[in-house]
């Protein structure tokens, strides 16, 4: 009786490790298929539009409001030790290094991972994936490869757009509400940011895009039967993508800025 919670914890850890192993094998298979023909350019272009172009409004709005709120917080906190003037620098570094990529990653996780998981899971329960096989088309190559490639390529661009809009949100609040001078705000932002800040942001975007799309495809293909199976796959995919994105963010930040 006393060991039951420990046994449950052990099972949970083993299950989590087994899932991680299966996702890693799946990732290896997807990468392997990326390098071998046939390729499906039409599906890739559709995925670019779905993941990249159609995510722009939600990414833009999220970044704009976050940049504005961040400027208010930094100004308010900075007042406690007379450091209000650092708003442009902290907004820039906070958005570009951290909030931009993480928020874009999480929004992609919510919008794209869920949609991919639900779509592929529905295809599985309605036998469309079996139909692909009988039509001599590898489901992983046809469904996963275009989406994962599109995610890995477009999310860094979305992060770049999010960074610019986020900094713009901070700029608007700072200049219109907090009384900052426009020219000096822009000058401070540009002077403070360094190339590694921007590069790290884009690298994070690529990794988060890969994770978000891969996890959507994986859980869609692992879906159980019926509507409950589709719902379960979608829910698990979004939760797993969010956790993996945040974990990957910590690891990448440690590697790039830890020293």
């Amino acid at each position: 009786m006393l060991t039951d919670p420990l046994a449950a914890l052990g099972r949970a850890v083993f299950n989590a490790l087994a899932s991680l192993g299966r996702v890693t094998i799946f990732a290896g298979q997807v990468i392997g298929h990326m390098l071998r023909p046939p390729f499906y350019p039409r599906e890739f272009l559709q995925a670019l539009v779905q993941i990249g172009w159609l995510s722009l409004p939600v990414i833009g709005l999220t970044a704009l409001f976050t940049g504005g709120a961040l400027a208010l917080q930094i100004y308010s906190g900075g007042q406690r030790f007379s450091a209000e003037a650092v708003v442009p620098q902290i907004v820039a570094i906070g958005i570009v290094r951290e909030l931009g990529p993480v928020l874009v990653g999480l929004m992609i996780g919510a919008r794209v991972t869920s949609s991919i998981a639900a779509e592929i899971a529905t295809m599985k329960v309605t036998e469309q994936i079996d139909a692909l096989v009988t039509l001599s088309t590898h489901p992983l190559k046809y469904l996963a490869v275009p989406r994962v490639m599109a995610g890995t390529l477009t999310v860094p661009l979305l992060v770049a757009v999010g960074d610019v809009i986020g900094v713009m949100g901070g700029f608007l609040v700072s200049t219109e509400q907090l009384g900052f001078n426009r020219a000096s705000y822009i000058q401070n932002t540009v002077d403070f940011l360094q190339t590694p800040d921007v590069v790290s942001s884009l690298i994070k975007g690529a990794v988060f895009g890969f994770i978000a799309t891969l996890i959507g495809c994986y859980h869609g293909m692992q879906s159980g039967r019926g509507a409950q199976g589709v719902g379960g796959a979608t829910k698990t995919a979004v939760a797993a993508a969010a956790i993996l994105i945040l974990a990957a963010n910590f690891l990448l930040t440690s590697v790039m800025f830890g020293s």
Partner: protein
Amino acid sequence: MISLTGVHKAFGRNQVLRGVDLTIARGSSMVIIGGSGTGKSVLLKCVLGLVRPDTGRITLDGEDVTKVERDAFLARFGMLFQGGALFDSLKVWENVAFRLLRGSGKLPKDQARAIAIEKLRRVGLRPEVADQLPAELSGGMQKRVGLARAIAAEPEIIFFDEPTTGLDPIMAGVINALIREIVVEMGATAMTITHDMSSVRAIADTVAMLHGGVIQWTGPVGALDATSDPYVQQFIHGRAEGPIESVR
């Protein structure tokens, strides 16, 4: 010729197939009957390699299906799925021409579209349907599009999984007649799974009954009514009493 020998398949503790032995002659139409959940679809998917048998051997023209080159093997098959399994995001003609637009036998788009429209006409659908999405069609039309897709590449072997399930009797009759016509016209080998007795009589040359994970009875469709096998008799007459338990 398709041959299955001692095919076993279990899902967890549920032993679905317990040693299936079956032969389907080239150019013949075999219908497999049996109650719901007896493993008819699993059997069909084992032949196609969608489900891997635990033990047993499946051969096509003497070659083990697990050892043949997959693309060439699958190119010999067409399949009509129970729910149609049409790709939602593609137009009807793109569904029908799916195989023709991809892979080693890829055709130019115009040619593939023309073949798709011809196959749609063959299953009784107007050319205007070609540019619609599957969701815009009724269940019977979706089934016919699935049938057009199954025959689009003129395969040697066609599988039909519950071709009339969910259709009204008239539409079921239309689909049965189409399947029979197409199989005869193309000279294809057909394997159909169903529990619809009107389909059996319309489509089959030979019938096999799957029960308890094994082939309980097999013979020509003409012998179906005359057989003394109690399982077959209970099934074809839809009796609640008999050796097949009604509570499963």
